[in-house]
């Protein structure tokens, strides 16, 4: 087989994997948007906060150490324990539930029945607050996230493809792990929303707030739950991206990678987020591979949007969005 074709195949596979990572971030947006109609600008910062909390708890860091030391003149940094990864993840999930409850209690509850733009604005405020809060709590240094995820080239794929085609494909173990985790996550979400009482209640709220209220579903509870689930998704996204780069401020910028995916897949569709992520991942990688060298490279950022734009011109409601019927 010609080399160029093999390379394109490899790029495409890696694009799929990257797409899964984008989809992971986009999922968090979709969940909240579906259940409460909020475009949650703070999703990226939530991923950062979750990952920082995870590392902080695991390494036994004292929260607000800098502040405490400044005020009381003490010199505390560490509790001196190291937690097992699973315990730290569990505790972090707990923190995210608490966070969801606080958001519901102090923000959303006061903004019931407000237009979407107001709720969007509230999440801007939340993002600003969290940005300062996360750094204040855990410090701004780069933290190494180590919960035993595999990394590096997958030797088996490399060898198999080398024997088959004479060129070994590169697939990152971390990406494979991310794909598996994402698949499990989506299956769990689907099962949860289809077969549990709470999941059904969540879907009812997504369909119609008022009708859901009238049959006795607690909006407050649903909101706390949805934000907790989104917090958990943010944690997973934070772990996957953080494993690559260490946990640091830039993690909050991964939200930008999810935007074209959302535009393409539709804000309300979980399959849309997945398929959109894959299309964006493959599209931008292939474009960079095929066209990038001729126009100077670094095209991925804008091409993702151009791709989404082209799709939208033909399908203005997004891939899986419902057909927009306009009436006067």
């Amino acid at each position, binding site marked *: 087989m010609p080399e160029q074709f093999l390379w394109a195949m490899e790029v495409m596979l890696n694009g799929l994997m990257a797409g899964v990572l984008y989809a992971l971030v986009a999922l968090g947006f979709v969940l909240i948007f579906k259940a409460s109609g909020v*475009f949650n600008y703070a999703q990226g910062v939530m991923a950062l906060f979750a990952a920082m909390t995870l590392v902080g708890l695991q390494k036994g860091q004292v929260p607000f150490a*800098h*502040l405490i030391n*400044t005020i009381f003149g003490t010199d505390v940094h560490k509790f001196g324990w190291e937690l097992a990864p699973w315990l730290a993840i569990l505790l972090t999930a707990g923190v995210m539930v608490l966070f969801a409850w606080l958001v519901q209690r*102090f*923000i959303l509850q*006061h*903004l019931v029945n*407000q*237009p979407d*733009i*107001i709720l*969007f*604005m*509230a999440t*801007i*405020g*939340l*993002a*600003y*607050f*969290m*940005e*300062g*809060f996360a*750094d*204040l709590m855990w410090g*701004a240094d780069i933290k190494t996230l180590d919960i035993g995820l595999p990394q590096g080239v997958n030797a088996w794929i490399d060898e198999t493809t080398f024997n088959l085609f004479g060129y070994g494909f590169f697939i990152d173990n971390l990406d494979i792990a991310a794909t598996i985790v994402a698949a499990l996550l989506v299956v769990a979400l689907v099962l949860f929303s289809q077969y549990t009482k709470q999941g059904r209640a969540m879907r009812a709220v997504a369909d119609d707030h008022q009708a859901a209220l009238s049959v006795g579903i607690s909006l407050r509870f649903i909101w706390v739950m949805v934000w907790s689930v989104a917090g958990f998704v943010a944690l997973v996204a934070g772990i996957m991206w953080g494993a690559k780069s260490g946990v640091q401020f830039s993690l909050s910028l991964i939200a*930008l990678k999810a*935007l*074209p995916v959302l*535009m*393409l897949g539709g*804000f309300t569709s979980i399959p849309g987020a997945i398929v959109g992520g894959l299309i964006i991942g493959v599209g931008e990688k292939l474009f960079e591979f095929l066209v990038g060298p001729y*126009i*100077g490279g*670094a*095209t991925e*950022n*804008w091409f993702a*949007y*151009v791709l*989404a*734009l082209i799709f*939208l*011109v033909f399908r*203005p*409601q*997004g891939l899986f969005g419902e057909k*927009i019927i*306009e*009436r*006067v």
Partner: protein
Amino acid sequence: MIYREAGDFKTSYREDSQTFPIKLDRRAYWTLMVVAFAVVPFVINDYWANAVLLPFLIYAIAALGLNILTGYAGQVSLGTGGFMAVGAYAAYKLMTAFPDVPILFHVLIAGAITALVGMAFGLPSLRIKGFYLAVATLAAQFFLVWLFNKVPWFFNYSASGMINAPERTMFGAAITGPEASAPARYLFCLILTVALAWIARNLTRGSVGRKWMAIRDMDIAAEIIGVNPLTAKLSAFAVSSFFIGVAGALLFAVYLGAVEVGEAFGIQKSFLILFMIIIGGLGSIFGSFAGAAFMVLMPVLLKNVLVDGFGWATDLAAHFQFMIVGALIIVFLVFEPHGLAQLWRLAKEKLRLWPFPH
């Protein structure tokens, strides 16, 4: 008691529909103008110009521009940073190509060029609506930044791709470049801001603005009553981009003097300006100013209070600054969800009745 309409009789339509129907407002407005034009230039120093007033005025122009598009015409845009970059690079190319032309023309032509670019990227708005339209403007944002970073012609083939504003003048006074005095730069920006705000106010209350608002409120209904969506949407994109282009040109040439496209005009800037108009109030001229003031002045104020006033460590202060700005946004929303402009409006309503609420 003091702030009231009683006794202020309007005898013509003209009087009735003026921008400030209450006498006290008019007086306050004219006082503000007199202070801004006749007092501030004599007392302004470099710190006030560069750290407070210039960014406020320039961001106010950008916020006005975005508010026309998003607040009045209902087209969501996240391409503000990219359009500002068009203004900045157009101004740079014009400034270096025609050094003898007064700077005002460079800035205005840069705005016009941005208007054309804005219209081109506004075309998808005829097909894509709502939140989804943001993708078209985001494509503009990332593509334009990439373009200005990649094509050396735009930055005159300099090694790093930074652009520097050389000295250019207006009526013999330097407006750009290091030797430009604080009052000159301030007045230049002030005149543009006031002129553009005046244009924006009159456009939005005239037939053009009514068409925009009709499109915003329901585009199909607007079409049925005879508003052409093509011209209405594209004119909104054009006018908005003109404002934003002027703001970008000023940001580069007058305020910063040297910019790098990715850092100065990145996606963060688009969000910042969107935040300004949302927090200030969508569809409000005053809101654009209030939002710009909040986002520009609040951090400076907090920094001065926390670091210089209380002597906190700079990083703690910076963290708290974020938290306070964020918390303030939320608190404002909980008390008054429609932005600072609505807060202002309500305060005025209350004041009219004060101290006799019934």
